[in-house]
């Protein structure tokens, strides 16, 4: 029974199961820890951290859409110093792997954050967010520029021995090029996908419903797009993939793994059911038992085309 092996590897990063909580959908873990035992998770990806605190965009920042939601949080975060001072200590109380997501407005800022955090033992890996659609600097400015993403990957790798995961944007047609450059510059894995750019207008005021005008689309609506991007990378680039985008159930996790993911992240679902990740982990185990799958990781890229 308990012989099922849910563990997965992302390069040198070993996780006890493939279920991570996605950046920006779990804060720094403290609120959601009231609902679940963080130690049961494969890992937590922290809200994007930048060198200095960011207040984020003015409201309205979120909007429900059909089968999804738009957010334009604008990388609101406590900043590097406060993160080290108050957030890491909390997370240290757990054994759950922490992947620290970094967002920045310049290449140097990425490097500076990674360098500073490299000595933090509590951090298992970095996820480099080059794909936030909701800030003017950084974010998609880099996410759509293959050379910039290559440079960032290489320079961050140079200042840390921790695994470096680069989070890719689905908003271009050439995700393969980005995955290739990440691999080439020594990146350990890619996460795909961040949100799709979207907007919505109030038909009476004729103003965008989000103050930032556009936002990032997440949730089950984007699941087919995420899967297509993951498959595209998986078929063309030999790099571990962390799959993200609209996961709502254990079945979705299996689907993402088949399409090429070594691990997955749960985002929007945390808002709807903060206990969902834990339920999914136990359902994945049941699935493995029922279908005689010894190693869940054998599903990764097991597609038959």
């Amino acid at each position, binding site marked *: 029974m308990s012989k099922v092996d849910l563990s997965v590897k992302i390069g040198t990063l070993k996780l006890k199961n493939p279920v991570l909580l996605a950046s920006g959908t779990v804060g720094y873990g403290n609120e959601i820890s009231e609902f679940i035992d963080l130690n049961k998770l494969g890992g937590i990806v922290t809200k994007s951290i930048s060198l200095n605190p960011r207040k984020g965009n003015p409201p309205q*920042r979120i909007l429900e859409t059909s089968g999804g*939601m738009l957010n334009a949080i604008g990388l609101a975060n406590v900043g590097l110093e406060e993160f080290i001072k108050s957030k890491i200590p909390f997370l240290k109380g757990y054994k759950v792997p922490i992947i620290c997501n970094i967002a920045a407005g310049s290449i140097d800022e990425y490097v500076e954050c990674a360098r500073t955090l490299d000595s933090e033992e509590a951090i298992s890996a970095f996820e480099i967010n080059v794909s936030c659609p909701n800030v003017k600097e950084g974010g998609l400015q880099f996410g759509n520029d293959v050379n910039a993403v290559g440079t960032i990957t290489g320079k961050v790798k140079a200042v840390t021995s921790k695994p470096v995961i680069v989070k890719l944007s689905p908003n271009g047609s050439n995700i393969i090029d980005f995955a290739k450059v990440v691999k080439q510059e020594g990146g350990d894995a890619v996460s795909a996908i961040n949100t799709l750019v979207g907007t919505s207008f109030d038909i009476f005021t004729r103003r965008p419903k989000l103050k930032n005008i556009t936002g990032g689309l997440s949730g089950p609506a984007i699941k087919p797009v995420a899967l297509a991007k993951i498959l595209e990378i998986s078929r063309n680039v030999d790099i571990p993939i962390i799959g993200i985008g609209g996961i709502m159930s254990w079945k979705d996790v299996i689907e993402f793994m088949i399409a090429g993911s070594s691990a997955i992240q749960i985002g929007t679902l945390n808002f709807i059911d903060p206990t969902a990740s834990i339920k999914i982990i136990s359902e994945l185990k049941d699935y493995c038992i029922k279908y005689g799958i010894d190693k869940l990781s054998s599903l990764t890229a097991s597609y038959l085309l």
Partner: protein
Amino acid sequence: MFIIDAPIEEIIELENQIMLCKLFAPEIAKSVKPGQFVNIKVSETIAPLLRRPFSVCDVEGSFIYIMFNVLGEGTKLLAHKFKGETINVLGPLGRGFNFDGNFETAVIAAGGLGAAPFAFLVKQLSKDKKILCFVGGRTSRDVIDYGMKDVIPSTDDGSLGFKGNVVELMNDNLDLLENKRLKIFACGPTPMLRALKEFSLKNNFECEVSTECAMACGFGICQGCPIPSSEDADKNYLVCKDGPVFNVKDIIL
């Protein structure tokens, strides 16, 4: 905080398009404070995707009440539920009203569905405070005073009580308020709260307001519900976690 499948004990239409729903939710009933809210999944499908936040309107034993306006898809689906059906409720959430303070008279100011949290608050306050309720609506049908007492109404169209909004009504009744150790508890549309802020600052009344904001999670993980701090230009509070009730001085409305 609990996540429970709560059976609907009763669901009735109070007024046109205003529903009152009684839910069996013992864990929440036991721990909730006036002004806190619950976040409800109104369907088992992805439509709508997110939960819907509602103030806890009242508590009776193991039951909680929510009062809601049928506005869009979510509240429409909720209004069509039957007794015995189960809905998933997350709560209690947020910071409620602080009513332990050193005051004698609690002044309730409610605009429209802003009445929702006050049945519960009034019940608690009744133990040791005097209560005065100012309740406004567009027309007489929109004056919701469910569970309140000593109600002074106002309507935009003058069809009931004072003609004007709640804050104008309070201004008109300033003599009832002056020279009292009072605290105002308010809930209603943002323009009303804004006017009330001015009114309470001018008159030096203590005032707590329950605010609203689009929400995704309801408990602090999405950063979707900021409200600017009036003290620190670099700071936002989160409506869901730091609020929904704020001292009116602390926030920019």
